[in-house]
């Protein structure tokens, strides 16, 4: 229940939460709670989207979904830290890590809240491309809300720095683009998460192509322009 109390504080009283991160209060406890909750929520979401294909795909997606977000976090956090330090931030790498983890936690809570809706469409529709695009939309909306949270958090935390507040805001904007770019490529590398109904279960697919061309191809097929092979 303590872990959920941390989530409740993030959602209800973010200012207080970010102020504590700025002051370095209880960072380990907060990070542990956010990590545990995010992994559970993302795993459940992964299990739901994977279960449109098979039990093995559900289990695989339940493992891959937390890996996707946490690996993106690990890859992207040093960039944010060094750019912030360059522009006068006095925050440690752990504090930056905690801030990004807050964004991931918000994303995972929102994904959990979408789970019944996604599951409803899984039960009542059969279209693979539709289901894939629905999930891209849900993940994008949740991810966007997560980074908005990060941006607010950075603004609160930045007030502790001596100089370069404006520059650090631009750094966060640049970093959010980078995070989205790395995240989408990471998702493409770890695919499949849903699993094409015509294909057998695979843990990973061969490299090649990219996330964006695949999304456009799915939209094209859904609108009846062509058929994706």
């Amino acid at each position: 229940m303590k872990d959920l109390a941390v989530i409740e504080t993030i959602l209800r009283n973010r200012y207080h939460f970010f102020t504590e991160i700025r002051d370095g209060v209880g960072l380990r406890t907060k990070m542990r709670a956010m990590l545990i909750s995010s992994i559970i929520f993302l795993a459940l979401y992964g299990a739901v989207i994977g279960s449109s294909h098979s039990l093995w795909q559900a289990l695989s997606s339940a493992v891959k979904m937390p890996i996707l977000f946490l690996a993106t976090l690990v890859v992207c956090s040093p960039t944010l830290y060094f750019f912030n330090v360059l522009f006068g931030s006095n925050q440690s790498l752990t504090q930056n890590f905690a801030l990004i983890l807050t964004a991931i936690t918000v994303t995972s809570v929102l994904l959990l809240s979408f789970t019944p809706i996604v599951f409803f469409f899984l039960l009542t529709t059969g279209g693979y491309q539709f289901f894939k695009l629905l999930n891209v939309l849900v993940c994008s909306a949740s991810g966007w809300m997560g980074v908005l949270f990060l941006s607010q958090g950075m603004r609160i935390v930045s007030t502790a720095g001596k100089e370069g507040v404006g520059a650090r805001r631009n750094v966060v904007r640049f970093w959010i683009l980078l995070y989205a770019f790395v995240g989408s490529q990471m998702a493409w590398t770890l695919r499949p998460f849903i699993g094409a109904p015509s294909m057998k279960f695979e843990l990973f697919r061969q490299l090649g192509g990219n996330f964006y061309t695949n999304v456009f191809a799915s939209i094209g097929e859904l609108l009846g322009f062509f058929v994706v092979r």
Partner: protein
Amino acid sequence: MLDPDLEVLLARIRAQMELDSETEYEVLSELRAHLQEALAEARAEGLERPAALARVAARFGLQETAQGLQATHAGWGTADAVVAAGLPVLCALLLRWLAFAPDGTALGWPELLNRPSFWVAALLMLLIPLFKFGRWRYAVAGWVVFWGLTVVFVTWPAAR
């Protein structure tokens, strides 16, 4: 009838809590009753009203009470929502996997309606959460909806 002085004490406790307003209301209602009792007790002992109020405030310890209530009830609002979102989906997935082969292929679909094991599993999956998770009323309501959808969408193609 509300005592304005006790309401001031309750407002000070409330200011230190970060719970959802429904929980806060329930918790403070219960606390109000205790404060009223303590105040009546102090007055019965012959204390003047200001002294009685001061004793009630000191006895309960406003900050400690607020911290204690916060620690006891924090997270339960989120837990309700998490369970409401997660439990129905988890149970529905389990039900689907009990009806399907692990590789996702339909196992004996034409005979599904005649398989007692499917109906036993489906009924158990419905009844266990209904009796076991009575506290999570929204989760149970969500589960009933998903149970119905799962059973219909699993058995409908078989029935056709």
